[in-house]
């Protein structure tokens, strides 16, 4: 699908250090328009740090960012937004004291004269959330009173409002129910089809295999391999993530297989076993 195409977003040699922790070392990443790139890696591998580098929340110590062919400095979230980069953060970053509508439209409120157009914002919020199968009792509830999954849905909806060119999703489905996860995966596909570049961070190999075109692996803050979906097995990806073919995951699988003698418990339950 992609590969040969000109990348819309391209990182080269990104490094970032927090005190004694070298979070990123010379990381490269390319995303083309109409491509879903899965960014995977172990906990603390630097995925979220990389996302924050791209969206201006935590500028890198060194390295270059090229956006639509031009080298850019993304030194504030505002700058990233101007470029058309939208982000769903792992730690969500919602204002607990504001209600759902206000969180959705924060920073890009709709106006009606000098004042806010609350009616229109509320209407659109409802539609937007419905699209993601969100179960939210009222869009006028402060987000502090929402469940984990509801908050995550709000954060995802937020990122779609500004008509972005690149969307960064940092574990967007971690707290979502099965239906909502399916909707988000559908949504990612729609975004790809509309020609957006999508970076998806996920620990769920099933989801990655389902929607990604390419998988980029980070390990201890460095690039540790890049694969095209369809040419790689989960086992290979996990090996790249953990840095060893013999690891706790394969051990666990082997052990369980032994115990249950052939009836693989991980895929029990029919062909839908993979759906979470």
């Amino acid at each position: 699908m992609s590969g040969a195409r000109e990348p819309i977003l391209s990182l080269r040699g990104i490094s970032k250090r927090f005190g004694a922790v070298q979070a990123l070392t010379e990381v490269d990443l390319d995303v083309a328009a109409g491509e879903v790139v899965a960014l995977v890696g172990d906990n603390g591998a630097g995925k979220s740090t990389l996302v924050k580098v791209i969206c201006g929340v935590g500028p890198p110590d060194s390295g270059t960012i090229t956006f639509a062919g031009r080298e850019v400095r993304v030194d504030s979230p505002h700058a990233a937004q101007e470029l058309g980069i939208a982000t769903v953060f792992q730690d969500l970053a919602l204002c607990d004291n504001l209600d759902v509508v206000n969180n959705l439209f924060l920073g890009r409120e709709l106006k009606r004269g000098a004042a806010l157009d609350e009616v229109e914002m509320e209407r659109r919020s409802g539609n937007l959330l419905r699209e993601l199968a969100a179960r939210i009792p009222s869009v006028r509830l402060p987000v502090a009173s929402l469940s984990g999954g509801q908050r995550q849905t709000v954060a995802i909806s937020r990122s779609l409002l500004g008509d972005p060119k690149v969307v960064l999703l940092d574990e967007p489905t971690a707290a979502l129910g099965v239906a909502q996860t399916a909707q988000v995966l559908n949504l990612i596909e729609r975004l790809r089809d509309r020609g957006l570049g999508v970076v998806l961070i996920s620990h769920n190999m099933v989801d990655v295999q389902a929607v990604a075109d390419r998988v980029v692996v980070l390990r201890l803050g460095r690039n540790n391999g890049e694969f095209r979906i369809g040419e790689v097995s989960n086992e290979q990806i996990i090996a790249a993530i953990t840095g060893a073919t013999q690891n706790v995951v394969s051990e666990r699988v082997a052990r369980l297989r032994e115990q249950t003698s052939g009836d693989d418990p991980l895929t029990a339950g029919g062909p839908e076993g993979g759906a979470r």
Partner: protein
Amino acid sequence: MTDPVTDPAVPPPTPATELSTPKEAVGGWLQTLRTGDIGSLPIIIGLVLIVVVFQSLNPTFLNAFNLVNLCLQIAALGIMATGITLVLMLGEIDLSIGSVSGLAAAVLLVTHVNHASAPLLAVLIAVLVGTLIGALQGTIFARIGVPSFIVTLAGLLIWQGVQLRVLGEQGTINLPPAGTLVRWAQFSFVPRWLALLLATLVPVLYLVFNLMTRRRRSAAGLPVMPLWLPVAVAVALFVLLEVIVLKLYLDRGVPWTFVFMVLIVVFFDWLLRRTGYGRKIFAVGGNIEAARRAGINVDAIRISVFALCSTLAAVSGVVAAMRLGFANQQSGSGETLINAIAAAVIGGTSLFGGRTRRYAPLLGALVIGAIANGLELLSLSSDVRLIVTGTVLLAAVVIDALVQRSRTSHGR
């Protein structure tokens, strides 16, 4: 153990209905009333209790003359409380507002009296001084990162020093007793017909806007409040305003300074709740990192809020000076600062940022003003007065705290 049983009582999960069935909408509104926006009711109850107590202790408390005085007395306080409310909304503090108000008063007097500037020009200069100070302090806070407590504590000292300097040897400067400024602050009252008109217009406009919004909401398919609610509020407002106005016109009437203060409170309430700028203040106060990530220019918000706060402090100082008829070295010192913060907090502004109730500065100023005014009528010695003031203040807020508490134990 058993097969799944789909409960027939559970409504179908189409989100559309979950978001807008009229029944749930009303529920949602009642919910809002019970949780967030019941808001000012407890403190209004506290205020009513204060009034009842003082009136029973001294029947002159609800005299027209005394009520007019009360209006005059709280004008400056309400304006300053409005400013500090903005800063508190950010979760920050401005300790310099007292000094800034004193300096503004001094500047006003010196330009107007010593340098014979036109009244309006002098006022403008004085207020501008406030704005500049606020912008400076806000910049040091936002850009260099010195805690606002320290920046404004330095301001508290520095601007008081400058105030002494500006007043110079004279120490006290009187305004021309029959001049425009004194006349406006002490002897200007809204004509009776206009006051009655306003007291009618306000509820009517409230109703009209409410119905218009209602119409837009139903057109957009959004839940609406029951119709009786805005009507009831408008009627209650109408009765209240008429009674107050009629009462006040047994004496001099509604002072313009009071109207001016109320307009400021209402304007900034609107600014906070109905504009993008206000929404950004809420966001920065609620979760600064979320605000930053939403692309809000946090520094700009902070600087502008400190500038606004100092501006209002300067306006407050000007109003106070005009009402007193002079400015001296003590203008803006003493309890000015703490009263303003207390008014904001009593009105329902959180010191932790991101939360304030509607018209908090006005309600808080009324509580503080009523306590001070009521106690003056009782001829107490200083020690008793202090003890009573503290106790009444606490009592006025306890109701609020108890309501909040029972609410929290019900889940919020």
